[in-house]
């Protein structure tokens, strides 16, 4: 297939109201979780590594809305969006972030390594780019046993320069795996701006070199973002192979909470502000006749849920040191 045939055009096709409501709810869940986390960190109530997702909420939420509960997701340390939007129960999620024994991983994984197979969150990796090869394996399992699942793997623009990205893209295209590669291009890899780590204008441009389909979308536009995810997921589920989605977005709060971001130029900060996905999404919702009250109510419910979850997580126990002997191998260590 020629390179131009491999590129899908972004779509502004209308999204039905129920789906829109779903996307809005998930987006706000991601956002309110992020706000709450930052508040707790600010107040010094918790002191853990947290990679803010402010500015990227819609990308994750819309992408997760295109998946079923059974579909698999692999994400990164900056995976709060995928994790909460895919449906990890708030209390389990918070407890893990706070290192509690009631957390998804009993406090052993932590913020960078949230796993919750019940909702398809199979791996959260802290090694940049390492999720893509693993995601292929999940998709390969689905292809092998015909379970109809789709795998989506989320990663950053910076991750597109590591070897694992390349190997995984080529392998997925070769086997036509049921997988979606979601590159959240937030314009920075740690402190390095996109143009300082990549000489081509876009990551999506790389897909053609693997014979893979791709689509480049504005991740702050709910229509472009959801329609792209839906297209790619449907394609994968139909056995028509992988798609690379490059979703343009902004990392509005630096690399991790508390990290210096003085290296970000003021123009960039202004640009980001103008493209904030949240007011844009709210405008779309209002335009589609959701009322202010209805939308506020969704947020209020989310906040209540988060508050309960945080309170319970704070009150829960830390794991016992005996946990160091468990889950190393199948049998407990002596």
């Amino acid at each position, binding site marked *: 297939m020629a390179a131009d045939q491999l590129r899908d055009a972004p779509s502004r096709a209308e999204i039905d109201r129920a789906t829109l409501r779903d996307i809005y709810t998930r987006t706000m869940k991601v956002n309110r979780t992020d706000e709450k986390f930052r508040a707790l960190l600010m107040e010094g109530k918790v002191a853990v590594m947290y990679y803010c997702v402010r500015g990227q909420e819609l990308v994750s939420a819309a992408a997760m809305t295109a998946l079923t509960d059974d579909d698999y997701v692999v994400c990164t340390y900056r995976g709060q969006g995928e994790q909460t939007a895919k449906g990890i129960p708030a209390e389990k999620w918070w407890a893990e972030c706070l290192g509690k024994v009631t957390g998804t991983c009993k406090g052993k994984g932590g913020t960078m390594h949230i796993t919750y197979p019940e909702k398809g969150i199979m791996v959260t990796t802290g090694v940049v780019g390492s999720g893509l090869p693993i995601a292929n394996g999940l998709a390969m399992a689905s292809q092998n046993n015909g379970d109809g699942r789709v795998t989506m793997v989320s990663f950053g623009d910076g991750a597109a320069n590591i070897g*694992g990205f390349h190997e995984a893209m080529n392998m997925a295209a070769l086997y036509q795996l049921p997988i979606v590669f979601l590159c959240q291009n937030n314009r920075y890899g740690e402190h390095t701006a996109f143009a300082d780590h990549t000489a081509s204008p876009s990551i999506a441009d790389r897909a053609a070199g693997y014979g893979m389909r791709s689509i480049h979308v504005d991740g702050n536009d709910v229509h472009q973002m959801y329609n792209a995810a839906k297209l790619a997921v449907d394609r994968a589920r139909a056995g028509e192979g992988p798609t690379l989605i490059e979703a343009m977005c902004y990392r509005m709060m630096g690399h991790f909470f508390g990290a210096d971001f003085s290296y970000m130029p003021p123009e960039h900060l202004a640009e980001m502000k103008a493209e904030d996905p949240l007011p844009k999404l709210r405008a779309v919702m209002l335009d589609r006749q959701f009322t202010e009250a209805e939308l506020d109510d969704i947020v209020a419910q989310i906040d209540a849920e988060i508050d309960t979850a945080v309170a319970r997580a704070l009150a829960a126990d830390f794991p016992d040191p005996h946990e160091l002997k468990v889950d190393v191998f199948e049998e407990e260590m002596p």
Partner: protein
Amino acid sequence: MTGKPPQITMVQALNQAIDEAMAEDDGVFCLGEDVAAKQGGGVFKVTSGLTEKYGTHRIRATPISETAIVGAAVGAALAGQRPIAEIMLMNFVGVCMDQIVNHAAKLRFMSGGQTNVPLVIRTTTGVGVGFGGQHSDMLEAWFAHVAGIRVVTPSNAADAKGLMRSAIDSNDPVIFIENILCYGLKSDDPGPGYRVPLGEAAIAREGSDVSLITYGRTVLDALAIADEMASVGISVEVVDLRTIAPYDEETVLASVRKTGRAITLHEAVRPYGTGAEMAATIHEKLWGKLKAPVLRIGGTFSPVPFVAALEQAWIPTKPEIVAAIRSSMENG
């Protein structure tokens, strides 16, 4: 019954073990470079004939992409399958250690036991075939130093079959090291379903004077030398670890408790090799009960040279092993 029992080579043994496991469990599949029928069934023919039976989804020939190979195995294992990934030669783990060590070995723990990674990584290596510096290393000590992964290596065809079945059965990731020079070794066919439990060493030869603790190809050297030493009245017990890590400390200590003397032997370079762990443990656990210090023999501390004239000097030599045995006997 007349005639000898049927014999199988190590290649056949591995092939049979994989074949049996694939026949029993649809979730078992192989992936690696050149493994399928179209490519000749693997460069060492271990997966020969399997594509014809199980198809190209279960015998997947891959691009030259070790990170993608191991990564895919990790992912498929998380989804409940039992992949057998091949890394053509052991040195190439250098390009995919992250997937093995940071992911395969750790995901059970980091997920708090919600997931596990039942994969087997088969690889081969070996000094003595002139493959040179980048194709000959034994790197088992790297994996032994990582919690969450098992390291296995057979020294004979029957063990190869039994260990491979157990490795595939294992719910933990296993690095399965084959030695190129052992592929042609023959054993009596142990028959279908044969298993050698992981974590159990074998006493390859009983003896009473000194324990020679080894694994893989050097077991052959050890047995040959034990024969010779018997003729001069030194009784060498050869311990074949089979599972290098976590190893069978009990059997090792029992042997040394009996003999009072121990020598560790491996092809990997001596410094920081697995022999160091065993020597340190034996000294600590059998303090006051040893007749001589534990001696360690390993490959020369240099990259593996190309030419046979150097390569044969690089590997643990017979005179070196004999000298260690004699030196050990002189003590106590």
